[in-house]
């Protein structure tokens, strides 16, 4: 359910891989208006935390909401978990 703009939403932030390294200065939580999109949060973080800009705006970075890969335009709800996922390098 997408709340009306103006209602405050607290979003939990997670950064993986090299994003975790650059994100040492990034907050664990982000307060926004409910209904804000994942890409809007990313852009706000990139402005506030210069160390994150390059790694966060790479086109290969994926986003998940509540542990499901999501579209950058998906609106966020209060209490959700937003994770930034750089290209995988496992195995």
């Amino acid at each position, binding site marked *: 359910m997408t709340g009306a703009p103006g209602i405050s939403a607290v979003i939990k932030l997670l950064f993986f891989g090299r994003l975790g390294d650059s994100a040492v200065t990034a907050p664990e939580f982000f307060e926004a208006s409910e209904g804000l999109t994942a890409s809007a949060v990313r852009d706000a973080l990139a402005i506030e935390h210069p160390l994150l800009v390059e790694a966060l705006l790479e086109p290969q970075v994926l986003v998940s909401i509540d542990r499901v890969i999501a579209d950058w335009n998906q609106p966020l709800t209060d209490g959700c978990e937003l994770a930034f996922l750089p290209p995988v390098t496992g*195995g």
Partner: protein
Amino acid sequence: MYRRVVVQNEDFDLADEYRRLRQLDAAIGAVVTFCGLVRDCQQQARIDSLNLQHYPGMTEASLNEVVATAEQRWPLHGVSVIHRVGELLPSDQIVFVGVASSHRAAAFQAADFLMDYLKTHALLWKSVEIDGQRSWVEAKDSDQRALQRWMQSSTSP
């Protein structure tokens, strides 16, 4: 279909995994296993350790997706995938893939496919420590190329 997908810090035992797979069905004629080990050198540098980061829940889900794709593509009796995370030293086991099938071609192809897909689809991030310096590992072009084999050709038995 037996499926076992695990992400863990602990080491695994090939013999245990193999025993589970071979006992599933008397129609099994082939069991292929792959064990990935930490090499002591990468790009000519001697490594101190690897560290694998995962996203609990999502990493398991990504592995299950890869396994489901293999199950659809080949006639298999069982698949096991174990991926270790955390700190790993040279010669440590990192990843296990085991496949049981009636026929050897299906077992080989599915195990090979699973490894190629894990390298590119498993939600895991690897960093390497060399001379006390930790750095993140870049995604490899060779892994992307390996993957394309499975897309271009119909390699089902």
